[in-house]
């Protein structure tokens, strides 16, 4: 096991970091104020040229080696990771990029976690599958600049031209004289060297990468994760710390009418109850309010909450009912809605079609259910506060805790722990604000506020619920001439903007508007849907319902035409071409430049062909087994999955094998790309087969893992083979954390159709196949 230290705080003299910053400036103009953290390109003034990628994110990027790299006299290289680790391996991958360009020996690298401070580190909002694609190049420059400074220091010491020396595996070498000197011995002198100008930084040729793209390095946090020492948000312990849980309004938008804490205060260990003000809907990232129970330990707080008598006013969402809402959404989906893309003449083409086919799909609310529920600890000291927790968006945490406490963001320190899963839930720092309110009410004492599993499942920012209505007019060969897709789903923007009822550009750009199909007449409509609970983003977001509907429907058309599903899918995708987002009416394009990131149907075709070939598409299977395929473009990556399903006589599903082909461009850590695809396959199967949150009288009906079911070992695929399409480091990169999820549910349902002839249109499948 590695002895590498991975703690978060600097505890030794680090020479390079002790000097003031020079030369390097921040990449993008810092955008003042808090911008929605969902990864939306920050809106500039109308006259400003549009900014894309990392440039378009709040506080952009930073590539200053003096910010990210420190070298101690003993040669230990500390590399700061400014993105949050939630299982994607970013604390290994991001420092690996710097270390490679720096020619650092990985065995002598330690990883330091950055506190929340985007002015210093650049954007830290870890979601949208963006870390690698936004920071690969800045981190390369950062490592290369530090390497250049070490080389310059060595050349100066030896009195030789800098062109004659070369940094190589933790030392600088002068080949002519055979002299060599270690990084530790050079650190002090290197720090005196000017930081080279950005355009003078010489990046490695990718053929000389030591770590990038190799996948041989072990995860920096794995040793601590297997011996219990890894620190998550829920693990924070401070001297004199108190513990709290919160009773929240059971209905979104509800309020406390009265509280009787008599019995609560009799529970041994309970100290106090603290009311948290409700935030009027839309609550944004603010707490929904309620009553906190503060105690000497978590269990006492939970017991105290159980004894609490609260009368709630449910507010206008008290009648929210999933069954009625589904019917209302179906009604909307059957009537024309706001047209969000219109190519050709769908009505005329439908009228002249040989046959018209339609289908409707339903995907329920989901809860992220990270294994570590939200947890934050806050200590308020005078006009300052310190925060510890599992945050995907440390800067938003800093800004909003400051705002709620009425202090300056600069006076709030946010320590980012490991995240025990995130999946989008931990982008929302409401739980840190709750802890801040309670700490303040307890005279600033440190308070760890923990969400129980029930809190997590009943009060999360739910994945939306949706009805997807599709119609196609096909010609005599069964080929679609017309495509109509009506997507009805409450928007996540309803959590931020009062009365938002239409899908935002970023939701439409997740696989409904930007279908890159070779069909002349396409119309996409978005009828309204009001939200009655807190909607948020969940790993892969709207791609989940959109891909499920689109990829199921293409398979339905193939079946109606009597065609092979894979061949038919390729035909609908059409020939290899690069489509501008504009041609698809996609104004979002994942916040990326339309020139650098067009939709490339050649790449989409290639993942389909690769997954099919590797899965042995067309092979003969025993009775009750079937293969299904689905492909989806999301977060600028292309993923296709072939699922092999087995359905037994009792209608029980198992999955012997999944083949996933992914084209995310060039990779930094291919083993983590594989891990993300394997994990996404499991999550996708869970969404398809088990996951559902329902509402009655405004209340989420699932409280724990007995009723909110997720995939377990026995339900996981026996085997998941991941096929990574080789990429070019000169080309833009794609996301990895999310794109693996969307193709799984449709591929599974297409496989079930192949195995049984039964078409699943409503998720989860649960016992739909049972006799």
């Amino acid at each position, binding site marked *: *096991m590695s002895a590498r230290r991975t703690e978060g705080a600097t505890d030794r003299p680090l020479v390079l970091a002790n000097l003031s910053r020079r030369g390097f400036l921040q990449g993008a103009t810092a955008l003042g104020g808090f911008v929605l953290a969902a990864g939306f390109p920050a809106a500039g003034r109308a006259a400003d040229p549009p900014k894309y990628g990392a440039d378009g994110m709040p506080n952009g990027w930073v590539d200053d080696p003096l910010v990210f790299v420190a070298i101690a006299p003993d040669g230990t290289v500390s590399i700061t990771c400014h993105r949050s680790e939630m299982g994607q391996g970013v604390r290994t991958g991001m420092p690996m990029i710097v270390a490679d360009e720096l020619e650092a020996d990985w065995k002598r690298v330690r990883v330091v976690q950055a506190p929340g401070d985007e002015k210093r580190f650049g954007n830290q909002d870890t979601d949208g599958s963006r870390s690698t694609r936004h920071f690969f190049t800045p981190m390369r420059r950062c490592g290369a600049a530090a390497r250049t400074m070490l080389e310059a220091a060595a050349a100066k010491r030896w009195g030789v031209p800098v062109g004659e020396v070369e940094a190589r595996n933790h030392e600088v070498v002068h080949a002519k004289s055979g002299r060599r000197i270690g990084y530790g011995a050079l650190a002090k002198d290197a720090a005196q060297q000017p930081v080279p100008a950005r355009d003078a930084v010489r990046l490695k040729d990718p053929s000389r990468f030591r770590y990038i793209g190799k996948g041989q390095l072990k*995860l920096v946090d794995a040793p601590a994760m297997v*011996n219990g020492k890894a620190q998550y948000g829920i693990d924070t312990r401070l001297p004199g710390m108190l513990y709290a849980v919160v009773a929240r309004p059971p209905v979104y938008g509800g309020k406390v009418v009265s509280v009787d804490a008599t019995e609560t205060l009799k529970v041994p260990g309970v100290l106090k109850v603290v009311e948290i003000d409700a935030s009027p809907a839309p609550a944004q990232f603010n707490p929904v309010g309620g009553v906190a129970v503060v105690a000497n330990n978590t269990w006492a707080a939970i017991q105290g909450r159980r004894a609490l008598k609260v009368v709630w006013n449910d507010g206008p969402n008290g009648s929210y009912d999933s069954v009625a809402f589904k019917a209302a959404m179906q009604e909307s989906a059957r009537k024309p809605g706001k047209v969000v893309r219109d190519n050709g003449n769908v009505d005329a083409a439908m009228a002249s079609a040989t046959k018209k086919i339609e289908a409707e799909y339903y995907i329920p609310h989901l809860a992220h259910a990270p294994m*570590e529920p939200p947890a934050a600890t806050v200590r308020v000291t005078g006009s300052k506060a310190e925060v510890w927790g599992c945050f995907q968006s440390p800067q938003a945490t800093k800004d909003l805790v400051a705002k709620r406490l009425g202090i300056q963001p600069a006076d709030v320190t946010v320590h980012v722990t490991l995240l025990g899963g995130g999946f989008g839930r931990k982008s929302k720092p409401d739980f840190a604000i709750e802890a801040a309110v309670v700490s303040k009410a307890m005279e600033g004492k440190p308070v760890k506020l923990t969400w129980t*599993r029930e809190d997590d499942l009943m009060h999360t920012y739910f994945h939306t619920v949706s009805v997807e209505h599709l119609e196609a007019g096909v010609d005599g060969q069964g080929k679609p001439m017309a495509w109509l897709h009506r997507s009805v789903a409450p928007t996540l923007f309803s959590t931020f903007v009062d009365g938002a009822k239409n899908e935002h550009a970023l939701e439409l750009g997740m696989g409904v508007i930007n279908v890159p199909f070779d069909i002349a007449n396409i119309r996409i409509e978005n009828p309204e849907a009001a939200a009655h609970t807190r909607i948020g983003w969940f790993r892969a977001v709207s791609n989940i319902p959109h891909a499920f509907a689109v990829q199921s429907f293409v398979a339905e058309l193939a079946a109606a035409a009597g065609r092979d599903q894979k061949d038919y899918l390729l035909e609908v995708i059409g020939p290899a071409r690069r489509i501008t987002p504009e041609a698809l009416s996609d104004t979002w394009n994942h916040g990326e430049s339309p020139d650098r990131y067009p939709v490339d149907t050649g790449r989409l075709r290639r993942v389909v062909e690769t997954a099919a070939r590797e899965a042995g598409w067309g092979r003969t299977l025993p009775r009750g087994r079937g293969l299904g395929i689905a492909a989806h473009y999301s977060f600028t990556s292309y993923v296709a999955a072939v699922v092999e399903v087995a359905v037994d006589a009792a209608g029980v599903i198992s999955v012997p094998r999944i083949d996933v082909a992914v084209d995310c461009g060039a990779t930094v850590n291919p083993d983590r790309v594989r891990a993300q695809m*394997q994990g996404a396959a499991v999550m996708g199967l869970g969404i398809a087969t088990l996951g559902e949150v329902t509402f009655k009288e405004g209340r989420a009906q699932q409280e724990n893992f007995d009723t909110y079911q997720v995939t377990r*070992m026995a339900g*996981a695929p026996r085997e998941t083979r991941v096929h990574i399409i080789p990429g070019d480091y000169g080309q833009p990169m794609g996301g990895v954390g999310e794109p693996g999820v969307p193709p799984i549910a449709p591929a599974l349902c297409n496989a079930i159709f192949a195995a049984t002839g039964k078409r699943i249109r409503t998720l989860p499948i649960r016992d739909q196949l049972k006799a």
Partner: protein
Amino acid sequence: MTSVTVNGRRYNVNLPDDTPLLWALRDELGLTGTKYGCGMALCGACTVHVDGQPVRACQTSISAVSGSKVTTIEAVGTDRVGRALQAAWVDMGVPQCGYCQAGQIMSATALLKRTPKPTDAQIDEAMSGNICRCGTYVRVRAAIKQAAASQSGATR
């Protein structure tokens, strides 16, 4: 006052008798390696060994273990099988977020001590009480097999 023996050390815990072992470990003894995941013995994140048997600490009161030996993830590495599993976990890159892995390793250790060469079905049965939302199951299965193989080599 309840007395519990954890990882070979005796502690006097000044909490009500019915306090779950999980919260005594985490909040009183500072052993935070044992994780909270559901509080209802549904997810396995809090798995510890009581006299060698895997139990869910969230549904086990401190009074129920006062005469027993409790082992947590912090000490499972002192056991040969536990150590082999930890090594396999790191070697095969099992963890993603890592949060559930303490419980996974505690369940896997109990499995291999009982069944040194488990079949897929035995692994599924022993491990299906442990939820991983990152979906590391395929690698968990493979790492258990690797650790089992390394152990059969070691004892021969």
